[in-house]
């Protein structure tokens, strides 16, 4: 099994932060103790690609020795190709066991003089920064640009911030160092939520989760809009239906059939607690026999309305998302996973970088392909793994809303990983590293490859990657496009569409 997490972040100010351009990458190996894992070795790495478009991808692999779908091989090939084409510079570093170091310019390992720091242990600070336990002391920016985050204390903008463990609020390292109140004997309180024993952790740039949360907010607005639009459409259609019923009685039979089908699908979906889908699909509607429909089995069943919704989502994402190219922005994945788990095609939306036509195109292409080969049913039987996505993603949904520490039981075996948590407690006399179990830090962060990565299957990044990986094998040769993003997009489109088709066609419910 192989898990893949992709996250793209724009690298702000390439000139200002040369080390991001020079690419940081780390590998750490660890033994998986999780019983359900057969193989022993996992490879976790952060690989930053940067190319001429000032974009960095962070790919995190959790790769076992068994790589049934050959994704690891594929990945290495991609890397080789990019290297050859000089699209990226690539560089392995920190391959010493159990060491995780960030490539940080020496300049940024010490305070930039934002405050007159009194008792800062510069050596220790440097160590923590190099070990990615605190954000580098980049000089704060006055103005916001690209993906910079504003520190809520000094109001300056940084490429990445530390997060408070309690409430996940960001803070720059220099402000964090100020938080310890020298006149107080009480443990330091979080400046944001007043939780005692304030501690921060560093997870690199904006993490999936945070971006996800932000995007969920935006997404909710979009959803509401979509729902409104949908309501309008439904009303329209109902009116149409009535008119049609008046006109001819013969047509009324076919729609009913399909309609029943749709209801079946949505009821099984609603188990996932997904609102929009059940909203949108449970209502009766006339399904026009669209051209996208496959001929062989009636499983591949997309109606125009759904396509429209998907398109709307896609467009809104495009609008929201900064002009980015390489796909798989983690955040959007998140959103998609949460909200549109079952609307099947949306995860693809975020992954597509092709400006041409988004999902509808991809789906159309797929449908055509399926028509040609007529092998969809074979694939769908083979590809049971695609269903893995659902439990995982619903779990993700929980995670986002609830406390991040609320891990599913699968993870409980993962023991403390001494990672990325820095506590500022009065008692320690300094901002000592807290070595408590901070699985929070592990949750789907780009820097999550810790010394002892034992977070295994529960890691939030995993469910989705499973799916990606699982579906990947199903992309057959003929229509595989060149670029990685498109590959992914298509692969997911195939598997999701099939998964959906299966559930609606053969009555297998999502579990």
């Amino acid at each position, binding site marked *: 099994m192989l898990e893949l997490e992709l996250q793209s972040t724009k690298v702000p100010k390439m000139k200002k932060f040369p080390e991001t351009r020079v690419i940081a990458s780390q590998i750490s190996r660890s033994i998986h103790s999780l019983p359900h894992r057969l193989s022993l070795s996992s490879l976790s790495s952060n690989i930053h690609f940067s190319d001429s478009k000032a974009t960095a991808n962070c790919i995190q692999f959790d790769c076992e020795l068994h790589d049934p779908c050959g994704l690891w091989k594929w990945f290495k090939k991609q890397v080789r190709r990019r290297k050859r084409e000089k699209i990226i510079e690539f560089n392995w570093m920190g391959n010493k066991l159990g060491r995780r170091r960030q490539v940080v310019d020496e300049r940024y390992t010490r305070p930039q003089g934002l*405050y*007159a720091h009194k008792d800062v242990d510069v050596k220790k600070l440097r160590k923590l920064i190099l070990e990615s336990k605190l954000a580098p002391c980049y000089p704060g920016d006055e103005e916001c640009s690209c993906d910079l985050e504003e520190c809520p204390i*000094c109001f300056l903008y940084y490429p990445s911030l530390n997060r408070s463990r309690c409430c996940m609020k960001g803070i720059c390292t220099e*402000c964090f160092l*100020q938080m310890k109140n020298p006149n107080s004997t009480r443990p330091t*309180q979080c*400046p944001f939520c007043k939780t005692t024993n304030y501690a921060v952790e560093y997870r690199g740039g904006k993490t999936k989760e945070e971006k996800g949360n932000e995007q969920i907010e935006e997404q909710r607005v979009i959803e509401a809009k979509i729902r409104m639009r949908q309501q309008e459409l439904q009303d329209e259609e109902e009116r149409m239906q009535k008119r049609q019923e008046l006109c001819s009685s013969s047509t009324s039979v076919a729609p009913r059939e399909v309609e029943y089908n749709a209801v079946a699908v949505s009821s099984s979906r609603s188990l996932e607690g997904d609102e929009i889908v059940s909203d949108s699909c449970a209502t009766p509607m006339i399904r026009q026999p669209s051209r996208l429909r496959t001929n062989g089995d009636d499983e591949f069943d997309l109606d125009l309305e759904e396509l429209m919704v998907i398109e709307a989502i896609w467009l809104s994402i495009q609008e929201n998302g900064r002009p980015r190219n390489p796909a798989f922005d983690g955040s959007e994945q998140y959103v998609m996973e949460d909200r549109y788990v079952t609307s099947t095609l949306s995860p693809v939306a975020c992954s597509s970088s092709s400006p041409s036509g988004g999902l509808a195109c991809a789906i159309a292409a797929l449908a055509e392909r399926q028509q040609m080969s007529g092998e969809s049913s074979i694939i769908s039987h083979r590809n049971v793994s695609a269903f893995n996505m659902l439990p995982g993603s619903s779990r993700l949904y929980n995670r986002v809303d609830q406390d991040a520490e609320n891990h599913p039981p699968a993870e409980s075996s993962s023991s403390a990983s001494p990672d990325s948590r820095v506590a500022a407690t009065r008692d320690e006399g300094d901002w000592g590293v807290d070595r408590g179990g901070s699985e929070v830090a592990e949750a789907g962060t780009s820097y999550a490859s810790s010394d002892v990565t034992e977070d295994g299957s529960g890691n939030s990044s995993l469910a989705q990657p499973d799916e990606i990986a699982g579906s990947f094998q199903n992309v057959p040769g003929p229509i595989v496009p060149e670029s990685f993003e498109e590959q992914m997009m298509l692969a997911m489109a195939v598997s999701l569409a099939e998964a959906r088709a299966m559930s609606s066609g053969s009555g297998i419910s999502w579990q």
Partner: protein
Amino acid sequence: MTSSSAPSRKALSKIACNRLQKELVEWQVNPPAGFKHKVSDNLQRWVIEVNGAPGTLYSNETYQLQVDFPEHYPMEAPQVIFVPPAPLHPHIYSNGHICLDILYDSWSPAMTVSSICISILSMLSSSTVKQRPADNDRYVKNCRNGRSPKETRWWFHDDKV
């Protein structure tokens, strides 16, 4: 007057200056309802007009807040007082000092002038009776040498108002 003798008036640090400028910009774009910043070129002292919220004991009344920022704002809390005449309130002394925890012990650098203002207005609005604190005279007498409220050992006992 007590108000003018602010704490040792050291110039704002760079970071304080920067932050206040941004707060001011934000204020201008999005001022808290019921407040008006009196334009001045002194970044270190803001004078803010407060209008009592409609439907409360203080509706149609206007007061002035004076906010003095220390050198190490926001790591240190600003000094916030009402310019006398201060509103009659169980937590507001006649010399303008305000007994409100976020201005002292519970200050957090994540707070802003705007959030302070909102807290103060909420404190005013939730008052049910217009009266001075019980120890008003004693306290004011103690402060006659122009002591800053930040030097007071406040006792926050009433979380209702």
